[in-house]
């Protein structure tokens, strides 16, 4: 089964997120665009960054162009419309702003190469993606930029394709380690349905929940630098610690240092994009017995590989794919460069 079939089956709005710049997001996007055309799936296309530019702003290397077909609906900036080859009917100029001009919604009248640069924040991205669906797209592709993954939040997009590649490191093992870690975070298991309902309905604050689902709302605006406060509030009856925003390494460290009871609670975060803990620290915390769950698991549809690095080295494509597939058994792995 091709990537496009998996994506189209499971999602209306899908994000293509990457482990780094040049990990192959645009190539993945292009593959889905071409295959959608063959299957008569009308696409909406947008990006959190900028795509389809011919030359990379950082590495000065050539980048793949993006070809949009007649009927596709795109959200891009006024600045990008001017330099696109495709003929685009402008449907709406939104109030959303970017360094490259306002965000514009348009319909491709005559196919051609386009530059895509969409909304800046994830909330804006949600509004724009929903609008694209209303305008008649069957499937919206939200291309990520660099290593930004916030758009994979399940409240924004309903599935994600994770692009990874040789650009991360000259060591294939390191690339696999980091990719596996990212996939683990994105796919963290959800809390039980009843608890999920209680949390969503009853608290917008960082809270400690006991075994009878009593909620102790802590008077802190963020968990950053508040690990000790959180730890001090954990007692024998505590069962869950609910984080409303981010979870960073230092907060976890402080909780495990200041509370002996950390093993008895499950830390709950909204979703995997909110966790900022590296692979090594993550394994350390796991070993110590830290339990972390999420309100919403991210639906990772597939992993795509780019065995080439713009720095001039590459992996053996077969070996890379085989090794990655051995570590990631529950997801399809595609080499998009073949």
């Amino acid at each position, binding site marked *: 089964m091709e990537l496009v079939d998996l994506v189209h089956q499971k999602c209306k709005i899908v994000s293509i997120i990457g482990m780094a710049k040049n990990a192959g997001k645009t190539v993945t996007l292009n593959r889905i665009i071409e295959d959608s055309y063959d299957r008569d799936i009308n696409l909406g296309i947008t990006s959190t960054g900028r795509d389809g530019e011919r030359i990379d702003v*950082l*590495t000065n290397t050539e980048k793949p162009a993006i070809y949009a077909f007649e009927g596709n609906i795109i959200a891009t900036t006024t600045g990008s419309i001017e330099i696109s080859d495709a003929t685009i009917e402008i449907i709406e100029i939104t109030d959303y702003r*970017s360094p490259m001009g306002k965000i514009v919604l348009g319909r491709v009248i005559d196919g051609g190469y386009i530059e895509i640069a969409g909304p800046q*924040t994830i909330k*804006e991205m949600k509004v724009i993606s929903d609008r694209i669906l209303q305008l008649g797209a069957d499937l919206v592709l939200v291309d990520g930029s*660099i290593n930004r993954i*916030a758009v994979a939040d399940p409240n924004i997009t309903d599935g994600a394709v994770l692009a990874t590649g040789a650009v991360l490191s000259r060591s294939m093992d390191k690339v696999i380690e980091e990719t596996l870690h990212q996939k683990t975070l994105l796919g963290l298991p959800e809390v039980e349905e009843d608890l999920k309902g209680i949390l969503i309905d009853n608290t917008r604050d960082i809270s400690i929940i006991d075994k009878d689902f009593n909620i102790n709302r802590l008077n802190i605006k963020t968990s950053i630098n508040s690990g000790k406060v959180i730890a001090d509030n954990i007692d024998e009856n505590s069962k869950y610690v609910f984080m409303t925003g981010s979870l960073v390494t230092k907060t976890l460290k402080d909780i495990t240092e200041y509370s002996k009871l950390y093993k008895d609670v499950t830390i709950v975060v909204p979703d995997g994009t*909110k966790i900022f803990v590296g692979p090594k620290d993550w394994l350390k915390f796991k070993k110590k017995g830290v339990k972390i769950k999420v309100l919403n698991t991210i639906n990772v549809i597939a992993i795509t590989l780019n065995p080439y690095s713009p720095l001039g080295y590459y992996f053996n494509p077969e070996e890379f794919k085989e090794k990655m597939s051995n570590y990631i058994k529950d997801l399809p792995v595609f080499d998009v460069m073949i």
Partner: protein
Amino acid sequence: MAIEKVDLTKVKPYGDTLNDGMMQTAFTLPIPYGDEAKEAARILAKKMGLEDPEVVHYSDLGVGYTFFVLYGKCQHTVDFSKIEVPKVEVDSMDKYGVEDYIKENVKREITVIGACTGTDAHTVGIDAIMNMKGFDGHYGLERYVGINAINMGSQVPNEELVAKAIELDADAILVSQIVTQKDVHIPNLTELVELLEAEGLRDNVVLTCGGPRISHELAKELGYDAGFGTGSFANDVATFIVTEMVERKLV
């Protein structure tokens, strides 16, 4: 005024006659001083596309390295008439203009937090924008009436910056960063965006970055509202922040 007319579609370096293509280049090679080194430099210049390259000066740098200055004729031309460089469209207000704008349109003091984040210890940029004394005749944000400017200094972890922004309910964040050739600071810049999104703050702040290699295109990819490169002053940054706040209804 030159008498001969310049063909702007085929511009070439000027030495002492128009279109002679004469240019000078200088570099160091990691090889010991001597005739072989001089020949190596000449061959390299030829490969670079210089016609009749000539080593006019070379000196021993010690440790087996040699420095060269060469003259040669450039064979390439540039079509000057086709060049387009995107310029920032907003006309910046000066300090007093910004202060009046805040008084009339924002009607309260705004809080701007600045920092060099991650491993970056180059504070020249952020100081030029924030410091009361300012830079090159442009006072810094600390001197602006209506702006509460906080400079957190260098090597500030993204988490600390976000915690400060939450504590002070900041209106704008300004990150100064040297984007190095090896691009190690890029993930650091994107991590801040991701943290702000995770904390649910991204829509409530004007997020800008600045530094020598930062452009609007790069800012777009990084997820920042604006990027300020070399030659930007405090009033340019302040103008952007206050007008953006009003446009995005963050007042």
